[in-house]
């Protein structure tokens, strides 16, 4: 954790003091149009370029315009697993930002407020170190003009840069890149605001912090959020066609793909509705190469019938589901992991499908490639479950070796002698389709179909055929399961408690394990990235622990287990498996996990 609050203090007599710290958590609170995400973005990018670890967290209102919004960034020279429970510095632009977020600041932390809008409370003066600066009026003074409030975010960035002795030339370069191509006066104004903030050293900012040098020197990093990582992962995987309908928080991905795919000769189509988009993607998969569709919440529900067709017709497809709070319209801009059930079971009939869940932003990139390759290899729909948290969270990770990673999946149209798309003799039930355009020399052409079918895809009502084809569709996923690696244990392989997580919660769960172990408690964790099918052999890991606690951001359900918890209970029939759940729409705080685990493991 950060040393800021323990660094002591304000030096007497106003003498400047420099403290070296390993990491810092800065929370910026304002309204959604204040550009606070831009400040956070600049800080995250700067950290990425300085080979530091970084993670961000943001909330956005689901209103059309305006409303309170926050951006939290944690920068560290060591490993950063979460965006931080509590902030070292709270930068607040309004009274509501100040009053609403003071509780997220550590005791003795620094509250940096816009004195034009915030009146500090006397009762909080002793708990927090208050620094008031008339940010709004000083910004207007610096860059003039009538543009109300514009530029104050960049002014505040200057203040932060000074406070943390950040690399000014690198920040100037970032500003230059951000405002490139626009009217040069915009960049000049931004730089003026930045330097005005940087030069402002009022008497009460008496301390400067320096983040120690990174432990991973020489690593070239890229900085992006989860949605970007997925979009670029799909491009690297060779996906060149997609179709979707806009819905929060999925929309960014379709916007990126619509903009980027034409560079590679591909297309992303905005459709009239969710059903049309999954159907169009399936048409493109049928026609040549695996395509992508995606959505969030209600949009996924609308796609389920067509995904059932993909299971039956054995058509490859990648379905990105950026989960949000449900059911129904639910909480569109909040975080939840409540779509595991629909991903695994959301279809009528027996319709087994693959479900993957990346653990962090870097994983979004590489797992998107894995999703495409599983869809191709096993000719099956693959659900890719992320959530609103990972979608908007910015992380830095080592730049992928794109020459090695990028793949060409152009279909092969070499004529074949004969073709059974649903060959029951195929090893492990794994078959692939030949694509339209391929000549089949025996003159028997296949039909991709949603009816139960014989080996050529022609309708069959035979009970035996239905049994055999159901088994084929099941066996190929079992074969995939046998190839999946067991998750690595975080901590020793025996102990009191094993935490089991999936998806975006890996960071806070690991940090909770660190805290437990630091306090002498015997707690380990595993994180499942392949959720359906599960890797084989989890029971051997479970056997080393007294309590298996499944940590999920979903409801504890009618019977006391969250969605993954219920799957693991059904699979392993092990009474040690219990749920640790919450549905407040926010990412896990480490202390929340610690408290809930303590309560459960005591029983």
């Amino acid at each position, binding site marked *: 954790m950060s040393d800021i609050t323990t660094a002591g203090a304000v030096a007497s007599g106003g003498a400047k003091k420099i403290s070296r710290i390993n990491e810092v958590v800065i929370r910026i609170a304002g309204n959604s149009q204040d550009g606070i995400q831009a400040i956070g973005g600049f800080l995250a990018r700067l950290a990425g370029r300085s080979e530091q670890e970084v993670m961000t967290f943001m909330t956005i209102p689901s209103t059309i315009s305006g409303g309170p919004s926050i951006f939290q960034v944690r920068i560290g020279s060591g490993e950063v697993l979460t965006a931080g429970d509590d902030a070292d510095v709270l930068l607040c632009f309004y009274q509501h930002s100040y009053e609403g977020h003071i509780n997220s600041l550590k005791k003795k932390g620094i509250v940096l407020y816009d004195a034009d809008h915030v009146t500090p409370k006397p009762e909080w003066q002793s708990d927090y170190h208050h620094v008031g600066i008339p940010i709004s009026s000083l910004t207007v003074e610096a860059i003039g003009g009538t543009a109300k409030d514009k530029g104050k975010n960049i002014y505040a960035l200057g203040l932060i840069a000074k406070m943390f002795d950040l690399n000014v030339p690198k920040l100037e370069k970032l500003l230059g890149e951000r405002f490139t191509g626009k009217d040069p006066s915009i960049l000049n104004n931004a730089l003026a605001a930045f330097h005005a903030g940087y030069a402002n050293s009022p008497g009460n900012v008496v301390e400067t912090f320096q983040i120690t040098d990174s432990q991973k020197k020489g690593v070239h990093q890229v900085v992006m959020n989860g949605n970007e990582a997925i979009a670029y992962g799909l491009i690297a995987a060779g996906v060149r066609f997609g179709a979707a309908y806009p819905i929060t928080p999925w929309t960014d991905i379709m916007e990126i793909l619509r903009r980027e795919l*034409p560079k590679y000769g*591909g297309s992303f189509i905005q459709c*009239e509705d969710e059903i049309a988009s999954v159907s*169009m993607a399936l*048409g493109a998969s049928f*026609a040549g190469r695996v395509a992508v569709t995606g959505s969030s919440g209600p949009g996924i529900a609308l796609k389920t019938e067509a995904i059932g067709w993909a299971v039956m017709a054995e058509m490859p497809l990648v379905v990105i589901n950026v989960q949000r709070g449900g059911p129904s319209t639910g909480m569109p801009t909040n975080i939840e992991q409540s779509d595991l059930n629909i991903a695994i079971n959301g279809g009528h009939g027996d319709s087994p499908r693959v479900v993957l869940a990346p653990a962090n932003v870097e994983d979004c990139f590489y797992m998107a490639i894995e999703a495409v390759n599983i869809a191709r290899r096993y000719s099956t729909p693959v659900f890719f479950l992320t959530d609103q948290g990972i979608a908007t969270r910015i992380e830095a990770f080592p730049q992928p070796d794109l020459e090695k990673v990028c*793949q*060409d999946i152009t279909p092969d*149209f070499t004529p074949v002698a004969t073709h059974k798309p649903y060959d029951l003799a195929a090893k492990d039930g794994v078959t692939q389709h030949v694509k339209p355009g391929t000549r*089949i020399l025996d003159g028997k052409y296949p039909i991709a179909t949603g009816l139960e079918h014989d080996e050529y895809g022609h309708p069959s009502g035979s009970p035996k055929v239905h049994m055999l084809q159901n088994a084929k569709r099941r066996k190929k996923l079992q074969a995939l399961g046998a190839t999946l690696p067991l998750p690595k244990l975080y901590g020793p392989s025996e102990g009191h408690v094993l935490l089991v997580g999936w998806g975006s919660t890996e960071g806070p769960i690991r940090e909770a394990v660190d805290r437990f172990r630091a306090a002498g408690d015997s707690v380990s964790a595993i994180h499942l990235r392949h959720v359906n099918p599960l890797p084989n052999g989890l029971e051997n890991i479970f056997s080393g622990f007294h309590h298996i606690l499944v940590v999920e951001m979903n409801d504890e359900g009618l019977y006391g287990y969250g969605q993954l918890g219920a799957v693991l209970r059904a699979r392993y029939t092990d009474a040690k498996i219990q749920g640790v759940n919450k549905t407040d729409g926010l990412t896990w705080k480490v202390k929340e996990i610690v408290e809930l685990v303590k309560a459960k493991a005591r029983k």
Partner: protein
Amino acid sequence: MSQTLSEKPITALAPEIAPGARPGLTRKEIVADHPTWCPGCGDFSVLALYFKLIEKRKLWHEKITTISGIGCSSRFPYFVQAHGAHFIHGRALPFASGVSLSRPDLHVFAFSGDGDAFSIGGNHFTHTARKNIKMTLVVMDNQVYGLTKKQTSPTSPLGFKSKTDIWGAVDYPINPAKQAIAVGATFVARTSASNPNHVLATMEAAMDHEGFSFVHCLSECVEFYEGAFDSANPRKGGVFNEVPKSHDVTDEMAAYKLASADFPGNFGVLYKINKPTKNAKEAEINASFQSKFTGLKDWQILQKTFDRMK
């Protein structure tokens, strides 16, 4: 799984075959399963004429994709020896759009019925037409739900007695041709399964249209709505009124008026205009983007993007 990267366009096309390099297909080579339709169904005629079209135009198995949704009409792909897909109810058009937009080398035919195209799939009919996605849609309209055995369809006339309207249909029916013109289809024609030569000529004109071509084909259900189209069949005492020679097919208002005529109305091409297809527009967008990256491999294009994310 990494493979060598090529600089080929992503919409990889199957190799072109020089005309005359192979003989055209015979009917025997095109026929697949025996149709499961009831004896006397109008759809037999449409299928036979689709085979004729393939023969006449020397289309090859691998160059045709036959796509359908759900309904009696939508069993079509199983009866044709070619690549095909039997998709879900109402969604043949977006599926076919995915094929069309990613494979300009294929002839994309979608076969549908009145329930599939105008009821459950109504939204897709509108948007596929307005986007002018290149394909041919043949709707075999029998004015009744046949596969589920006689319920009211969106084209059932007022008063038609079905199992869901035992007192006679009360909802105003859709006029498919009017609807197609109104939503921006660039080729709208009407024909009837009882007039084979007319069906073939209409399908051929539709196939040759550069854009979304819609053929509204009356096709009688002898089981559940016998005699529905007698008024359009001269052999049953009706009249088969062809679109007047004087009609200007590019005149939208004139086409709309012709389409509005009382049943059985006019047969032939009602409306045909040339507008750039979505296929062409997307290709144009791609060409303009790709021209900025000439000579670069895909990974190098992505690298340029990543260089800005540092």
